[in-house]
Every structure is written in structure tokens, then in C-alpha cells.
């Protein structure tokens, strides 16, 4: 009896700690959303409470000003393209590294993995020159190659580990039946590694979508800007009108947030996957 009572008390303390943190997390989001429905002046009236009169004009203005949609489209193209390439090349490499029993295979594996601890920003100055030399500066096409390179270390790590766990007998049976190695990859490996491909995509989605650094140093042309770089421009443009700024911030956060809320468990697993070593 006494035991269960102390246990209950412990839970009360736990709930209090969690609720305090939940408040600290949710409060700024509440501030963000309610104030985006105010106006330039009413935003100063009751900073942390709902508007007296809901104003939808901020959203209308931002969405009508075509730039926001251009930025959004650019980000979508860059992120989707980068994710497709990163999962494709990492799965090919993972297949090779898991099947190829050789000294070289180990060397290549460690070459890829070492990228997990190296921040690519260190290479920015040289990357800027390479991008310029390739004629990609000031276009959205300057971004996917770098994002793909950023995503490969964790992609190769997750996929190689995953493919190693597929029973060898499956591939050998197919080989004896005369299937080529590519056919094995295409018909057997790819369908089996779908969950791992999803993990790799989720892991990379947030850094790709939320990257500011590379767009900032590569892109200066208005119609080529990504969503976040565009947000910095709109921030400058609406500086005197915080309610519009907040509408821009809300709109830019919604896509990833919506994805997260629909599949939060996979997200949490995916984002922490790269860090948890076997």
C-alpha cells in the first residue's frame, strides 16, 4: 500500500517537471500563432493573449506576394531531388559494401563514415569556388550536390548495416537462378530496405529543408532563393510589421511540422538514428 503511494507521488513530481517543460515549449509556439493574426499595431496590445479581432490579412498578403510561393517551390525541388539522389546512391554503395568482402571495401566504408563527424561548413570557401567553376552559382542547382554529399555518410552507415542483416541465402538463391547483381539489388534488396530508406530520408529532411548557410553564401538571385533564405528577405522587408513576420514564420514551419505530427515516432527514430551506433 505504502509502496504504491510513494510511486504515485513520484509520478506527480514527474508530471510537474514534464508539464513545466511542455509549457516552455508550447508557449513560444502559442505566441507565434496568435500574434500572426493581429495587426502591426494591435500586436503590442496584449502580447501573449488572443487578438480581439482576428486578422487574416497577413497570410493573404504573404501568399499573394508571389515570392513566398516561389521560395517554397524552390525548397521543395531542392529537398526532394537531394533526398532521391542520396537514398539512391547510398543504397547502391551500401549494397556493395555489405556484399563485397575485401580490404578495399573496409577502407571505403571508413572513408564514408568519417564524414559523419566532419562538418562540411569547414569546406565552404572551396565549395564556393567549385560551385562557381561549375556555373551553378546563383541557381538552386548549386545546393543538391552538397546536400547529397552531406547525407551520404549517415546514409551509407544506416543502409550498409541494414543490408548486412538481410539473409545471404536470399541473394545466393537468386544468383544461382541466374539473376545479375543489379537484378538482385533491384528485385530483392530495394523492396526489403524500404524502412531504412525512410529512416535515411527523415534523418536528412530537417537539415536539408532548414539549411540557411549554403543558400546564403551561394544564392543572390531573387527567384532562385530557398524558403529560409526568402524568409530572411521577407524579415527585412516586413521589419516594421511583426505580425506579418510571424505569419511568414508560421507558414515556413508548417510543412515539416505537419509531417512530424503525422509520423512523430518514425521521425524521432530517424533523427536519432545516425547518432546511435551499433
Amino acid at each position, binding site marked *: 500500500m505504502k509502496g504504491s503511494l510513494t510511486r504515485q507521488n513520484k*509520478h506527480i513530481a*514527474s*508530471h510537474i517537471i*514534464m508539464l513545466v517543460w511542455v509549457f*516552455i515549449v*508550447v508557449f513560444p509556439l502559442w*505566441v*507565434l500563432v496568435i500574434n500572426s493574426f493581429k495587426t502591426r499595431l494591435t500586436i503590442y496590445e*496584449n*502580447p*501573449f493573449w488572443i487578438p480581439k479581432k482576428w486578422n487574416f490579412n497577413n497570410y493573404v498578403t504573404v501568399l499573394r506576394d508571389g515570392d513566398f510561393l516561389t521560395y517554397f517551390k524552390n525548397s521543395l525541388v531542392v529537398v526532394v531531388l537531394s533526398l532521391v539522389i542520396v537514398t539512391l546512391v547510398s543504397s*547502391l*554503395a551500401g549494397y*556493395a*559494401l555489405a*556484399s*563485397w568482402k*575485401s580490404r578495399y571495401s573496409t577502407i*571505403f566504408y571508413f*572513408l*564514408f563514415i568519417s564524414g559523419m*563527424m*566532419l*562538418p*562540411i*561548413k*569547414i*569546406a*565552404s*570557401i*572551396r*565549395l564556393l569556388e567549385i560551385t562557381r567553376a561549375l556555373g551553378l552559382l546563383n541557381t538552386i542547382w548549386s545546393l543538391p*550536390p552538397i546536400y547529397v*554529399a552531406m547525407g*551520404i555518410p549517415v546514409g551509407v552507415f544506416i543502409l550498409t548495416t541494414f543490408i548486412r542483416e538481410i539473409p545471404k541465402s536470399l541473394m545466393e538463391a537468386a544468383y544461382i537462378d541466374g539473376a545479375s*547483381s543489379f537484378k538482385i*539489388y533491384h528485385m530483392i534488396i530495394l523492396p526489403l530496405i524500404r524502412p531504412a530508406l525512410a529512416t535515411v530520408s527523415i534523418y536528412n529532411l*530537417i537539415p536539408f529543408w*532548414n539549411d*540557411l548557410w549554403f543558400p546564403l*553564401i551561394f544564392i543572390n538571385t531573387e527567384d532562385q532563393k530557398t524558403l*529560409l533564405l526568402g*524568409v*530572411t528577405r521577407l*524579415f527585412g522587408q516586413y521589419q516594421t510589421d*511583426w505580425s506579418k513576420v*510571424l505569419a511568414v*514564420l508560421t507558414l*515556413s*514551419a508548417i510543412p*515539416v*511540422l505537419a509531417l*512530424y505530427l503525422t509520423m*512523430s515516432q518514425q*521521425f*524521432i527514430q530517424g*533523427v*536519432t538514428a545516425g*547518432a546511435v*551506433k551499433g
Partner: protein
Amino acid sequence: MSKTKHTLQKKQQWRWFLYLMPALLFYVLFMAYPMLDSLRLSLYTGNSPHTRSFVGLGNFSKLFSDPTISERYWGAFFNTWYFFLIHLIFQNALGIIFAVILTNETMKGRQLYQTIIFIPTTFAVLVTGYLWKLILNPVWSGDFFVSIGLPFLKHPWLGDTKTALTCVALVSCWQWMGIPTMMFVAALRNISEEVLEAARMEGAGFFRLFFSIKLPLIKPVVGIIAVLTFVNNFNAFDIVFAMENVNGAPGYSTDLIGTLFYRYGIAGQHPIGIPDAGLGAAIATITFLVLLVGVIPTLKRTQGGQ
């Protein structure tokens, strides 16, 4: 059978290399090579590949002997360490507490708490930064704090050189809290129930169980979190860019290595606006060495045996 298998392997050798090619191409061309070549660039001066000339350690001596540049560098260097230490203390302390709570099987609502804790992690640092910049603005929120009887909260948090860096660091902690928490949760779940049960049979209480069994077993995770935070913070840029500006206002008190690198190596210093690629590469090279010296021993010490 074994003979056919052998020739099969031989024949495959080059084929496997073909499978590696696409990933290698991207990885080498856009990561490994530019990174290593940036180290080389630190020994050169000139902004265009055509006019570049060798200066030996000239960039490094400029970085450490030019009065203005060296003052900025050391300022940013120590700010970055302070920024890192706040993360380390905050994330590990709160992360472990949250994780212990979230792995308590008999508690209700754990999934919901988990989901909420992780929300800020899905936000762009830029969005978080702009949002908190508004909340911490005394002109906007100050009167409200006074009206609820908390007048000490009306303070130019981001404009005061004493509080600015701490505030920026805490906002960054707010954003990333979900990751260390979930990594600790994963580590605690991996501890076998038998070990815990055995300890309970011996009469170990909650705190004893935590300090003698759980904590030693999650030490590798503390190491990984330390390394990840270390690497990320030596490159932090967005949060200062959003909340202050690339100069690390006020009075360079929030200047980090990331913002310093941007100003010297990429954008160019105000008012000249001409970047110094060699100097930038020198800053990057030192960061690279600091990371190497910091990361490898930490991993060795905490990941013992793996």
C-alpha cells in the same frame, strides 16, 4: 561449389566498385576534396584560384598577431566554448532527467510528452531565432511582465553584453533538447530488465539504481552527445544570425567562430566587403584541428571497447 563462388567473387570485384562510384563521386567532389583542399588554402592568399600565391603560415600569423583580428578571433573562440558548455550542462542534465521520466513504464502520457519535447527540433534555427528575438524584446513584452509582477523580466536581454550570449545559447538549447533526450531514452531502454530487477532484489533504491547502474551504462551516450554538440556548436551560425546579426552584436559579445568565419572568409568585413579566403581557410583549419583534438579522445574515453 566453392570454386564457382570464388570466381564469382573475383568477377564481382570491379562490379562492386561501380556500385560505389556514384556515392564516391558526390562524396569526394563535394565533401572530402574541398575539405582537405581548404586546409591547403590556409597557406595561400588571394581570392581567385588564378591569382593565388603561397604565403606559408602568413594567414595564421595575421590571425594571431594583427591586433584587431586576433582580438576578434579569441573573443569568438571563448564565446564558442561558453556557448558549448551551456549546451553540454543543460542538455545532459535535463536530457537525463527527462529520459528517466519518459522510460518509467507505469507513467501515463509519455508518448505525448515525447512528441511535444521534440517539436522545436523540427523548426528551422532561423525561425526559432526570430521568434525568441521578439519574445525577448522588452519594448514588446516588457510591459506585460511588469503587469504580472515580474518586472525583472523587462530587460534588453539581447542588447546587454552581459546577457546576450547566454540567452542565445539557451534558445539554442530549447530548440535541440529533443535529440539528447531521445538518445538517452534509447540508451535507458537498452538496459536489460534483469539487471535492474537483480539490483532491486538487493534492495537498491531509486537513486542508487540510477547512479550505480543506469548512469554508467549510458556513459557512451553522454560521450556521443558531447561530441555532436561540440561539432555543431563550432559551426553554429544561424542562431546568432537570426537573433543578433553576423557581427555578433552587441559589441561582438555573441560572435562565434561560425559568424567570424562568415565575415572574414565569405562575406567580407564591413566596410570593405572583400572576403579574405586565405584567412577564412586558416580559421577553418584551426576549427578542424580543435575538433580533431577534442573529438577523438572523447570518443576513445567514452566508447571504450567499441
